């Protein structure tokens, strides 16, 4: 049996012919572009799993990932009119999600200001140390322990299939830095998984 090739970029398989959802999805997309929330909800339900997985691996904790996922879809709704169809919708959405997550500068202060808008003082995020459903305890936990820069590049390159040039443009780093961060991440993960 041949050794497995490097991770198949998920983004590429998702754009192969026939991989988009059926004509029903196009209908929902068309409705959503025109402002129909039910159509947009279908789009949300079709894509939330993928966006949440991305957010979970890039965010600080599960609560933060949930908030980022919601932010992604709100931004998607606002930007739907600018989807030109040059790429598949899932590719466009994924790129938008990466931008939203990486440029998340929203302070916890502003987050909690919404929570307390009605005067209630509420708990913030759930315990980030608790095991998160859906994550493998080995590699995903090790990814969560990577330094932020290395984690971002590893997730985008090895997990999500982005090229270094794309990562450099999105993250605002040099291509050489992206490559260096990737190899650092792989070394650190190898060491962590060995323990």
């Amino acid at each position: 049996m041949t050794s497995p090739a490097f991770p198949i970029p998920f983004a590429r398989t998702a754009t192969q012919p026939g991989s988009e959802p059926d004509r029903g999805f196009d209908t929902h997309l068309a409705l959503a572009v025109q402002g129909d929330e039910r159509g947009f909800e279908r789009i949300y339900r079709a894509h939330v799993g993928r966006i949440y997985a991305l957010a979970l691996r890039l965010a600080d904790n599960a609560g933060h990932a949930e908030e980022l996922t919601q932010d992604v879809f709100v931004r998607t709704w606002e930007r739907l009119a600018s989807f030109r169809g040059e790429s598949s919708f899932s590719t466009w959405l994924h790129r938008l999600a990466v931008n939203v997550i990486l440029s998340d500068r929203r302070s916890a202060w502003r987050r909690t200001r919404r929570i307390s808008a009605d005067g209630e003082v509420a708990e913030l995020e759930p315990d980030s140390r608790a095991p998160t459903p859906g994550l493998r305890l080995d590699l995903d936990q090790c990814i969560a322990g990577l330094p932020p820069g290395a984690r971002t590049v590893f997730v985008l390159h090895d997990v999500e299939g982005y090229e270094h040039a794309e990562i450099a443009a999105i993250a605002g780093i040099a291509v050489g830095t992206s490559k260096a961060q990737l190899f650092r991440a792989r070394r650190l993960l190898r060491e962590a998984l060995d323990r």
Partner: protein
Amino acid sequence: MNCEMIHDRFDSKQAGTLDPAEREAFELHLAGCADCWADLEASRFLAARTADLRREITPPTDLWTGIAPRLQPRTRRLTLPVGWLAAAAVLLVAGTSALTVLLVRRPAAEAPTGFAATEARYQEATLELATVYRQARDSLAPATRVVLERNLAVIERALGEARDALRADPANRAIEEMVVAAYQRKIAFLERAAALDRKT
């Protein structure tokens, strides 16, 4: 072949696409470099495990309840542009009380390509944010407005200089990166400024 060049060829090595001379140089380097051996081994070790990672994870709660209230209503409209090419996809959808003609794809010929496309996206994002910022700015204290405008002027000057340089040397990738960085800086600043509340 040095370590950096070896790293750049990992994927090609795995895919078996190195030419014979490169493959020989690659293996010669590996024979004498413990660090690159370790890197290659780490990459192979991780490849299968990474491929097994789930790319879709269902959130533990239904996040739609936190999304729907934040969606600003948009008006439905009939869109009947003139002069669309046959490549456009036209869908007929039966609404509750009317037929709605929807167009979801524009012909590729209308879309800018290359860096022009990138810059168009940044300009669009900047314009949207600038509108939000101006509305927020008008409700801020005068001293705050002065502080914001002073900093924004510096950012815009730098963006203008970078764009001028790119116009003079359109194929220069380094200048393209500088233009992108300048747009990102402007967007980040406008987002911060727009988020300041009336108390400041």
